[in-house]
């Protein structure tokens, strides 16, 4: 679990400014921790030592000259292996990209590099970010440092585990249907998915383009806010990245939350929710009420249709996005006499079972004769789900739900039944489909000491308020409920 003494963005900067430590020494410290613990956790797939020490040298040169340090100066960062990093292998957790080295950095990576971060390496994840337990990685599962023998959540399991085990101060994940928030909940740390269009997707290797987002994990809400603010904002390389100004999220955290109306949707506390998770989230809501928030019962009446909608839309987009892995331009190739045969053999050998399953489902949903019945219908239900939220946000400022219906399950427990695995995303896919920002914050542990996560959702581009609620919750002891 996160130690009280863990480094934060602010404490790293203070220590560097006062010359108590150098960025190089801090990088040494983290690489030696990774060496010790990664064989057991499997959180990292590749390390980028050369780049990390180059970055550290730059920060140390600034500090030596007594110059002002950038906001993320010297902060050891882990990056999910679906984000393109120049010169560092990027596998997407797949055999098909086992030796792929991107020639460029994604926009979020460029911005965090400019902000002074130290890139430790690339973290394990479900293959092409498809999974809720990290068990779909071609490079083996990740252990949950907060709950041994349990899954770290997925698909950004490695990024969550790296921070939870303090093998990084902050990390980046991606969220398509819950892949940041759910591992954050499983590993007991704050984890945020921003609004769709808040952070550029340029350099994020696509799974489902209308859903994919990049977001941070940290030990504290303040660190999450710092990293998000530095990545956010318009980008000429992504036309879906919104031209909405980026406020200073960290500066707004301390404002009190008294008077805010928090919606509690009945549908998220119905059958299927683990009793202990319910109790913890209820205590979380009670704490927010103690801080002056007003609890408002609401309904999100199409919730029961969200998983079905999500698994049509996400797989349809994936089947199209993953058509590019054909052995021609990058990655694995299986030689064959004809082009089509080469495609088939390459994809058969390179993709794992879950990726193939989703490509099959998505191809089916888009195929002639089924498009209207599945894909078009799902897009229409997506409108209804988004409308539920729009109506709710006329009455409330934020919505509180459990992040996941159960505490982290045991490794291997759900791998045999794909549908069971999909249901782990029941409370997160809704915010994904509606494009909303959401954070998962820890709200204590079960009697077996398993982490429980509470989700805070807000209207589009309300990251500032969502983070402010999360920070007030943290400061009032909410993480240890």
């Amino acid at each position, binding site marked *: 679990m996160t130690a009280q003494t863990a480094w934060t963005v602010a404490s790293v900067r203070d220590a560097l400014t006062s010359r108590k430590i150098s960025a190089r020494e801090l990088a040494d410290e983290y690489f030696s921790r990774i060496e010790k613990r990664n064989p057991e956790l499997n959180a990292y797939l590749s390390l980028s030592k050369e780049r990390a020490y180059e970055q550290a040298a730059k920060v140390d040169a600034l500090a030596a000259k007594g110059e002002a340090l950038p906001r993320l100066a010297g902060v050891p960062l882990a990056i999910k292996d679906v984000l393109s990093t120049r010169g560092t292998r990027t596998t997407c957790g797949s055999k098909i990209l086992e030796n*792929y*080295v991107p*020639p*460029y950095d994604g926009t979020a990576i460029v911005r965090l590099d400019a902000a002074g971060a130290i890139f430790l390496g690339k973290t394990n994840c479900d293959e092409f970010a498809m999974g809720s337990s990290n068990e779909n990685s071609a490079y083996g599962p990740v252990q949950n440092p907060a709950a041994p023998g349990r899954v770290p959540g997925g698909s950004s399991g490695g990024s969550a585990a790296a921070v939870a085990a303090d093998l990084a101060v902050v990390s980046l994940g991606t969220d398509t249907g819950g892949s940041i928030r759910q591992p954050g909940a499983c590993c007991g740390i704050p984890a945020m998915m921003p609004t*769709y*269009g808040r952070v550029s997707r340029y350099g994020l290797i696509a799974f489902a383009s*209308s*859903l994919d987002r990049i977001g941070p994990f940290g030990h504290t809400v303040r660190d999450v806010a710092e990293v998000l603010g530095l990545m956010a904002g*318009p980008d000429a390389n992504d*036309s*879906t990245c*919104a*031209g*909405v100004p980026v406020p200073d999220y960290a500066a707004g955290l301390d404002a009190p939350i008294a008077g805010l109306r928090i919606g509690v949707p009945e549908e998220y506390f119905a059958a299927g929710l683990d009793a202990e998770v319910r109790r913890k989230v209820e205590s979380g809501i009670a704490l927010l009420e103690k801080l002056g928030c007003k609890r408002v019962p609401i309904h999100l009446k*199409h919730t*029961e*249709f969200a998983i079905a909608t999500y*698994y*049509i839309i996400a797989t349809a987009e994936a*089947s199209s996005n993953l*058509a590019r892995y*054909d*052995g*021609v*331009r*990058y*990655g694995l*190739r299986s030689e064959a*006499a*004809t*082009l*089509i045969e*080469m*495609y*088939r053999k390459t*994809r*058969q050998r390179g*993709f794992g*079972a879950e990726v*193939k399953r989703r*490509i*099959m*489902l998505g*191809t*089916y949903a888009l*195929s002639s004769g089924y498009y209207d019945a*599945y894909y*078009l*219908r799902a*897009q*229409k*239900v*997506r409108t*209804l789900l*988004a409308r539920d939220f729009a109506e709710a946000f006329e009455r409330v400022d934020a919505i509180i739900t459990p992040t996941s219906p159960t505490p982290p399950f045991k490794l291997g427990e759900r791998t045999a039944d*794909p549908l069971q695995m*999909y249901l782990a995303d029941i409370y997160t896919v809704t915010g994904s489909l509606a*494009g909303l920002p959401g954070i998962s914050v820890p709200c204590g542990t079960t009697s077996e000491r398993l982490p429980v996560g509470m989700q805070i959702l807000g209207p*589009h*581009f309300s990251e500032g308020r969502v983070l402010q609620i999360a920070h007030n919750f943290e400061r009032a002891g909410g993480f240890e409920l």
Partner: protein
Amino acid sequence: MKISREEVLRVAELAHLELTEAEAETYRGQLDSILEYIETLNRLDVSQVEPMAQMAYAHAAPAATPLRDDVARPCDVGEAILAQAPKVENPYFRVPKVIER
């Protein structure tokens, strides 16, 4: 039964996947139960609902989808990109023969 073995094989062909016998059977069963679950969407009347295809438009404000000027910029990454390809004949990707004659 929502999906037959023949349909599974046809979808695999469309997706350029070469399934083994065992995989075809496993996927048939799994897709069948997933599709059955997805049938729950049929309980909704969506005849009067517009489809949501793109989040960016949902944000409504014109500022939300800015356009940049359409100008050429240098993009000197040809070599770096070819370096990642499994088979190259500079400056091309090399693939098996496509045209039979």
